[in-house]
């Protein structure tokens, strides 16, 4: 990295090298049997140079020729892409967690035995197909720049994701568990999943209409994608955000608080700097319904005349090759603040409504405008506080700025979401449900 930075420094005003190495493996168990085991050792290098107020970029996964990478970045300068920012200098970064040896040394057999334990436990409680996916990984990333920044972090993780399929379908209820070190799926979570599965076994037809709807943690990304798009510096700079000129206004229910907190000690991916080396700490977007802050990377912070918010990450809605993606405004380690109602009491409070346990099509529709229209995969119908079964062919639709102004209650506990972040379930009072 240092050699690459030195070569780039000679050809530019400022230069930055980002590198990443990811060592991971995964196991898939379909219908009770191991069906796929795969491993991956991937690396990558991304170079950004600033010269005469312009930015040039280049990347490679395999650093065989440093001069070629610098040359690609210099060619990129010819596009005359403006950059009004400088790379950050050195800063005090706290120590983050070190990779746990139990993950480093975890082999296929270990993944299998932990997955098998989940399978065996659930098999004693439910009839039907059980799928279990598991994996482990070690991430090692570094950023160096010519302004003196030299930071790196390593992290380790493992996960187990289990699905209970309803008979003759691919529709399932699911539960996700992750840990920084080797661990088993908590049995109380599996008990709750088995109970949920049993309550959704009957298939019910319901009439279309407006009713109460619960978004559960696994489906909260439907709402998060829309709010994050609107709060992004990119949308503000391009003047297309529905939140434009509304900072400081109460735009959602006072029961709704959204923030990102990479420094949370309970966070699996705890970190203290973003992918541009800016210190990352708790960053609140909505505080009791009031729109407080934008999500910015260095570029949009500069364009909008704001301070960077430590929320510039190399990633996209669908993942992607880290080094190929430029840092973009993104809320990492997102949280919706918990409320004061248990999930069970929330369901008991519903006279007529739907619990959304999985969605199809969260990426469809007019995301920027806050519109959503998602298929239930599955959704459970509730009447007089009791789950009656899973809805046959249903959709819930609305606009996040409407439905989040009608929040009935927020669950008192946060859950890990397989799509990232920790969220409670949220009961929305008046949402359109279409069904056959």
């Amino acid at each position, binding site marked *: 990295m240092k050699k690459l930075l030195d070569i780039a420094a000679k050809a530019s005003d400022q230069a930055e090298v980002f590198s990443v190495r990811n060592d991971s493996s995964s196991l898939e168990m379909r219908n009770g049997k191991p069906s796929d085991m795969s491993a991956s050792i991937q690396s990558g290098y991304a170079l950004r140079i600033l010269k005469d107020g312009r930015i040039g970029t280049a990347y490679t996964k395999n650093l065989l020729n440093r001069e070629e990478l610098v040359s690609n970045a210099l060619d990129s300068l010819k596009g005359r892409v403006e950059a009004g920012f400088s790379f950050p200098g050195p800063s005090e970064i706290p120590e983050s967690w070190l990779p746990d040896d139990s993950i480093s040394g975890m082999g296929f057999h270990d993944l299998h035995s932990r997955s098998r334990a989940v399978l065996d436990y659930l098999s004693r409680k439910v009839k039907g197909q059980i799928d279990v996916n598991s994996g482990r990984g070690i991430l090692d990333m570094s950023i160096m720049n010519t302004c003196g920044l030299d930071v790196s972090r390593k992290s380790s993780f493992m996960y187990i994701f289990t699905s209970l399929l309803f008979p003759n*379908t691919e529709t399932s209820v699911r539960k996700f568990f992750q840990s920084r070190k080797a661990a088993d799926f908590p049995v109380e979570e599996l008990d709750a999943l088995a109970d949920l599965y049993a309550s959704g076994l009957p298939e019910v037809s319901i009439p279309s209409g407006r009713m109460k709807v619960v978004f559960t943690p696994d489906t909260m990304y439907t709402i998060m994608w829309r709010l994050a798009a609107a709060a992004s510096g990119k949308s503000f700079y391009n003047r297309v955000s529905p939140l434009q000129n509304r900072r400081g206004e109460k735009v959602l229910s006072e029961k709704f608080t959204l923030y990102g907190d990479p420094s949370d000690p309970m966070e699996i991916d705890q970190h203290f700097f973003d992918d541009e080396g800016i210190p990352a700490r708790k960053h609140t977007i909505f505080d009791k319904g009031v729109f407080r802050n934008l999500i910015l990377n260095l570029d949009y912070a500069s364009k909008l005349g704001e301070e960077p918010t430590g929320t510039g990450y190399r990633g996209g809605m669908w993942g992607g090759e880290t080094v190929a993606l430029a840092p973009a405004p993104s809320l990492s380690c997102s949280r919706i603040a918990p409320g004061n109602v248990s999930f069970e009491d929330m369901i008991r409070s519903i006279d007529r409504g739907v619990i959304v346990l999985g969605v199809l099509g969260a990426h469809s529709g007019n995301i920027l405008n806050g519109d959503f229209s998602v298929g239930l995969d599955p959704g459970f119908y509730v009447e007089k506080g009791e789950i009656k079964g899973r809805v046959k062919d249903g959709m819930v639709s609305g606009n996040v700025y409407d439905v989040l102004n009608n929040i009935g209650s927020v669950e008192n506990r946060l859950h890990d979401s397989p799509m990232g972040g920790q969220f409670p379930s949220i009961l929305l009072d008046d949402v359109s449900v279409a069904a056959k």
Partner: protein
Amino acid sequence: MIDRLRSMISGVEADFIDIRYEIKTETRIGFAGREIRNVGSNRTDGYAIRVGKNGGFSSATVTKEEDVPRALQLAVEGAETIVATGGKKSILADVPVVVENVELVLDGDPREISIDDKIELLKKYNDLMLDQPRIETTNLSYIEIGREKHYVNSEGTAVSEEILTTNIAGEVIAKRGSLVQNIRVAIGGADGYNRLLCREDVFLKKAEVAAELLDAEPVKGGTYNVVLSPMLAGVFTHEAFGHFSEADIIEDNPSLREKMALGEKLGSDVVTIVADSTMPDQIGYYAFDDEGVAVKPVTLMDRGVLTGRLHSRRTASAFGEPVSGHTVAEDMRFEPIVRMGTIYIKPGEMTLDGLLAELGDGLYLIDGKGGQTSGENFTFGAQYGFKVKDGRIGPMIRDINIMGNLFTTLQNIEAIGNDMELSERGGCGKGQLNIKSALGSPHILVRNMVVGGV
């Protein structure tokens, strides 16, 4: 390269080994509004390895050549663990050993076009959209992706093939007050740069529709009879039916395998669906898949009867059906999985006016805005649509998402148009991105679809 790959896998104790080395090149240019946001050309490479041993099958991918031995070791360990833990037994269907080097045929090689000319072309289309009334901004990109693939397996097959796709794609955004509406746009293909030239009409039309959407009314949720445009019917074909035709999707679900048995009458008499990646000039075109098998056209459904399926060598063996050459990876970071290339509904005989007359009252829904499937349930968004009354097109509607059940919907397809359109951009995300997922259809008439609305 082929000889180097052969030597890398020699001496490994396994029943089957293959290795794929790829050099991936990308050129991307992006505009956000009138501002150029990124310009760059990059080149990278890597290796994907698969091992079969005693019926176990496993894979590993690595970036660096020095990690190839470790990848082989991990893949062998994975295959052995599958056997030791009573996992799924994998046998590969027999295929001919081939040694081929497939040349790239292009109408205009984008690699010979200067970056300045590419920027100028992109800027021309971008400015054209931005100059239209009520258009607030755009996101428009030029994307050129090349994969130079070299594949070797322990059976003696050695295939080199280069594929190159070029696209100009993005969205145009109209705004009035706090109301924002967007429409997606994409042109391109796998047959060269010249396809991108002289396409002003496409961008102009999309900008006009985005502006008109500001006056459209949100659709009311409920059950409707609908006419789907070719692109939207293509999304249905891909999302709902196509994924179910990928053998790996249904392989481990016994009840779905039973439902999808060849010979079952699953659709109405008017529905015939074909997967054909041998069609030249389409973005879904390729000669060999990523396990060295020549791709073949497959009639998946013939007049409502299920007649074929898309396979890897492993799933073909497990199902006892013919290999089809549909095992494709996004790039060297991934093991290949079963993928559609070009999939479409075959044209029928009715004109669009005839379909609308047959519809009577309902909705005419146009162009896809993403879709997703989970087993037999699917959902997909429409970019816009119109109410239809007595067969006549009425007011424009927006915020349209459709949900349905594959089997019910296939039976509810009542009529097929005599037109035909194929997409110019892929982008299916089944665990990994497939930029060569072409889809298409004529207009089709479907009864009783659930439409989510506000």
